[in-house]
């Protein structure tokens, strides 16, 4: 009876539980946006993070008025939290496009129900990242000078500078991620348009759905374009954090000047990105009751990616240490020993514990299936990755070649406020997103339901 005549009802394939039809999938996900009443936990989160967003804006205003002297940065540590936060956020922003592009090309079924909100996470994280280099400028109102445009000053960007590459990489990454995300949203926006009851919602979703009606030829082109975007986004994902790492690696500062940096940064980016996916997925599926779509299998797979990328990161740490001693370069050796024993040693050892030691519990299946543990671990990993960025940025700078130019960096209240503010703003954007757009791709879930039936029949 299954297959030909009756409409498909999903079978349990691990990444999707049994009993879901096209209609019930569509209704479940779109009702989260269209009909679900606003409840107090969401409201509390919304207003709490909104307060944090206002604080972020206020602190930014104060920063623009007073200058970056309100932070702890000075010579020699001219790159403080702002740059560490930038690298951290852009790293978090890597998992979304990794999930939607690379896992699509690899035909991983578990990407289907997590790609939409992971892409949204990417957009918001990359937006936070993009702000920090601007906040960090002494004269932020001239930030556009890094873009090439014909101007009356007759100057052009310095194309041999990784900072210029960085601008292009981040801008391209944000734009392509947005295109990818929006394109995937169009059929779902059409679903919302057709299911909305209020005129306002029909109009708004209808405008953004661009008149999508699910014609077969449109779908064929859509599929081609989606695959092509995935194909070109794949090297893009890898390029972005590689370019970010070159901001450091091209400098000759001990602790920056290392050829392992590009792959090591990319691995770290995926590591923190998947941690953030877990941080968001676990409360999301609990709040919206999405246990049939975001199953324990998803969490298990994400945990395995965490374990694998964590191993790359650990390898990166080991290589840095090995190369410092193997090179025989006294400055590299001094820098490494200072990491172990110097002023920032507590940060370094906490980072090692959080990023290398603690994730090893994921070798055990029971740990990967223990949801509270995974949630706690994801927070630990993100904290650990932030400490890694701080170690690289701050510790390397504070003791360079000349003892006379050594100095210490101590973050001020404003450093912490702006870090907390960016986290709040990110969370606020995400909370808004889950109430106005489908957090899971509806059309791809329908396809998954169909495939689950076919798989059973085959």
């Amino acid at each position: 009876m299954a297959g030909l005549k009756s409409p498909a009802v999903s079978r349990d394939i691990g990444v999707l539980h049994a009993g879901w039809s096209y209609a019930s999938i569509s209704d479940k996900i779109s009702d989260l946006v269209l009909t679900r009443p606003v409840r107090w936990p969401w409201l509390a989160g919304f207003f709490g993070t909104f307060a944090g967003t206002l604080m972020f804006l206020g602190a930014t205003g104060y920063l623009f008025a007073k200058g970056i002297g309100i932070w702890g940065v000075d010579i020699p540590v001219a790159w403080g939290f702002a740059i560490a936060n930038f690298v951290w956020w852009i790293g978090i922003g890597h998992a979304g496009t990794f999930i939607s592009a690379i896992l699509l090309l690899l035909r991983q079924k578990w990407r289907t129900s997590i790609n939409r909100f992971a892409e949204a996470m990417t957009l918001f994280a990359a937006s936070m990242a993009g702000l920090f280099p601007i906040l960090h400028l002494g004269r932020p109102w001239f930030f556009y000078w890094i873009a090439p445009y014909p101007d009356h000053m007759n100057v052009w960007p310095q194309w041999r500078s990784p900072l210029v590459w960085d601008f292009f990489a981040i801008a391209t990454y944000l734009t392509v991620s947005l295109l990818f995300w929006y394109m995937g949203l169009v059929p779902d926006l059409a679903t919302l348009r057709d299911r909305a009851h209020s005129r306002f919602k029909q109009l708004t979703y209808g405008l953004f759905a661009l008149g999508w009606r699910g014609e077969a030829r449109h779908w064929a082109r859509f599929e081609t374009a989606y695959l092509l975007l995935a194909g070109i986004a794949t090297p893009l994902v890898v390029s972005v954090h590689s370019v970010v790492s070159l901001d450091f690696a091209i400098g000759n500062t001990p602790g920056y000047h290392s050829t392992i940096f590009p792959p090591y940064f990319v691995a770290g980016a995926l590591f923190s990105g998947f941690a953030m996916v877990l941080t968001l997925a676990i409360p999301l599926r609990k709040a919206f009751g999405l246990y049939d779509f975001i199953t324990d299998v998803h969490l298990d797979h994400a945990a395995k990616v965490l374990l694998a990328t964590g191993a790359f990161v650990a390898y990166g740490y080991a290589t840095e240490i090995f190369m410092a001693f193997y090179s025989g370069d006294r400055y590299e050796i001094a820098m490494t020993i200072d990491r172990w024993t110097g002023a920032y040693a507590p940060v370094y050892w906490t980072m090692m514990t959080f990023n290398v030691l603690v994730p090893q519990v994921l070798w055990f299946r029971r740990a990967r299936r223990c949801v509270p543990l995974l949630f706690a671990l994801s927070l630990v990993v993100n904290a650990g990755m932030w400490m890694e960025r701080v170690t690289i940025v701050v510790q390397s700078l504070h003791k360079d070649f000349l003892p006379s130019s050594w100095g210490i960096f101590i973050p001020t209240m404003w450093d912490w406020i702006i870090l907390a503010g960016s986290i709040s703003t990110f969370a606020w954007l995400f909370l808004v997103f889950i109430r106005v757009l489908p957090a899971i791709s509806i059309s791809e879930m329908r396809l998954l339901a169909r495939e689950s039936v076919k798989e059973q029949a085959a």
Partner: protein
Amino acid sequence: MKNVWGLLAEFATADELVTAAKRVREAGYQRAEAYSPFHVDGLAEALGFERNRVPFFTFLGGLFGGIGGFYLQWYSAVVDYPVNIAGRPLDSWPMFVPVTFEMAVLGAAFAAVIAMFAASGLPQLRHPLFAAPEFDLATRNRFFLCLRVDDAAFDARRSRELLESLHPMRCVEVKA
């Protein structure tokens, strides 16, 4: 057949729609359209869809972005604003690779999305189908096949008979 845009048949499953699409194609319909809530593999091909120009335009966009990105750097660094830094070559092309790559990706991505929408005639916010009964289910759980009046093979009576012979859930006229 004035004021009619087409005949719309509704099906419950994707497989029925693919079968129906093949049948109307065999019956000589060139402009028949099918609508589904997700991408059904082989459906467009069953209706005679052959020329997918999205890959070509994506390639063109990537080429344009890459060449444009490189030219921008070469022109500004060599011709318009040459800066002599310890006698190093002005045309230091390996250093131009990252931006060239990013611009190629950007060009290809824009071209892919724009080509996809443009070739499909989107955005098109008004369409006769949106007024058809139950067509809102095309984005939920139902599968539709439409024989257009402007199709050379269209004939009011025979087209309806053909659709009825496919055992749709319902078959209605779409007003123009």
